[in-house]
């Protein structure tokens, strides 16, 4: 374990160390009760901590989508209730998971990286290791478990808030009445799309959490490194989330 902490290398070194880190994070914890306590703490940290910001942004994204789409439809023959349908489908399939996870990458990602980076530089991780604690399964395992369960829930909230945002904006601007909009929302329910949304959410949550933990866990040097590690965590998480989005779209829609 200790061997790889102070070393650095090219992309292959980082990929290898990242894979080892993830594998060790799922090792059996010493004391299940401690692990659960930590998981619950992380769940509230990720879930409750980001709820308001995700709802706020999803609301506006839904509202803007509805208004813009209604404007385009108003010059065509397509019936207005279609706005509801399109907002719903685009929120579920793409906007809710992607936008939520980009927000989470910024908020939770930088948070996790600086938390672990601080623990590394103040030797708290060393202190755990000296006691014989498996630092991967104690520090990173609960964060991954919390992300995989909480991010899908947040994404469901995001989709619902976005659709509501569209409803309110549509009727406030007078483009589409709420009954028309709701008719569109209820037009067709594609179960597969909800499945895709939840899969994306879990995968993105895993990606952004593991990448951010990696950056913090292996931070070394002076205190400035913590800031740099959080920036790297956010940038890399965003890129990898979008990349995974592309791969998943291709895999799941075929």
């Amino acid at each position: 374990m200790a061997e790889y902490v102070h070393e650095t290398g090219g992309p292959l070194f980082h990929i290898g160390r990242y894979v080892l880190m993830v594998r060790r994070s799922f090792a059996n914890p010493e004391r299940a009760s401690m692990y659960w306590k930590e998981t619950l703490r992380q769940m509230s940290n990720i879930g409750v901590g980001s709820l308001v910001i995700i709802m706020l942004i999803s609301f506006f994204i839904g509202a803007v989508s509805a208004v813009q789409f209604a404007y385009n439809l108003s010059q065509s023959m397509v019936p207005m209730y279609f706005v509801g349908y399109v907002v719903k489908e685009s929120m579920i399939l793409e906007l809710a998971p992607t936008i939520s996870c980009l927000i989470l990458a910024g908020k939770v990602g930088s948070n996790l990286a600086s938390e672990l980076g601080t623990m590394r530089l103040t030797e708290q991780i060393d202190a755990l290791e000296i006691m014989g604690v498996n630092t991967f399964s104690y520090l990173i395992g609960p964060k991954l478990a919390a992300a995989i369960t909480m991010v899908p829930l947040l994404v469901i909230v995001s989709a619902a808030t976005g659709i509501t945002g569209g409803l309110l904006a549509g009727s406030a601007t007078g483009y589409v009445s709420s009954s028309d909009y709701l008719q569109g929302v209820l037009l067709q329910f594609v179960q597969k799309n909800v499945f895709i949304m939840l899969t994306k959410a879990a995968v993105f949550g895993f990606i952004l959490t593991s990448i951010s933990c990696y950056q913090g866990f292996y931070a070394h040097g002076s205190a400035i490194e913590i800031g740099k590690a959080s920036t790297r965590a956010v940038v890399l998480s965003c890129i990898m989330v979008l990349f995974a989005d592309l791969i998943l779209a291709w895999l799941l829609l075929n």
Partner: protein
Amino acid sequence: MIEVRNLYKRFGSQEVLKNINTTFEPGKNNLIIGKSGSGKTVLLKCIVGLLTPTSGHVFFDEKDYVAMGIQQKNEIRRELGMLFQGGALFDSLSVEQNVRFPLDMFTKMSNSEKLDRVNEVLKRVNLVNANAKFPSQLSGGMQKRTGIARAIVMNPKYLFCDEPNSGLDPQTSIVIDELIMEITEEYQITTITNTHDMNSVVTNGDKIIFLHEGEKHWEGTRETLFMADNKELIDFIFASDFLKEARDVRLEKIKAKLSK
């Protein structure tokens, strides 16, 4: 007993430790001294296994620690406590939870047994009525005490202290030094302390090894320290604030006596 044999540590091309050989005995306060950057922390971390030596061996009671698997290492680690330079207390936990942590993690004690044990060690390090405080609310000396309490809560056979006096005023330093010394003798622990503070060297050094640029230049006891004929060691003694600080501390004590 801990034995270090032919230990080398390299970071890239920088050779930080060169062929260290020595032994550390139980019930003794073993000191590693040397200037900042001489390799004290790296040596301590190689001994406890936080760093892997480039080559060489560390024996805990004749068992080769470097060659052990993770399972065996963890068994040794249950018998080992460490006080880190900055305390390394867990920020999100209170004093009580910090000290309790190893018990929660590794013992099957009941809650009340744990609490009794925590209060017992907190009392031992003279830290009472601070159970609910968080690390950020503690003074440097209190953080060190909490760190010591956490390090000894599992009754370790070996205790490691990295610069226990750093960031403390001279008075608090003496108190912490004395505490470490008492605990070492009371529980017959093998203690290894890193320091560049000459005050602790002359009061605490049952055995002293002096590092200079990663090499062991001298080894002896506090009694033989001032008869050493190693040039670097003599420079180290005279470059430290020791002589001046010793005078200041003495003056303080005399003043306190006079004002009584």
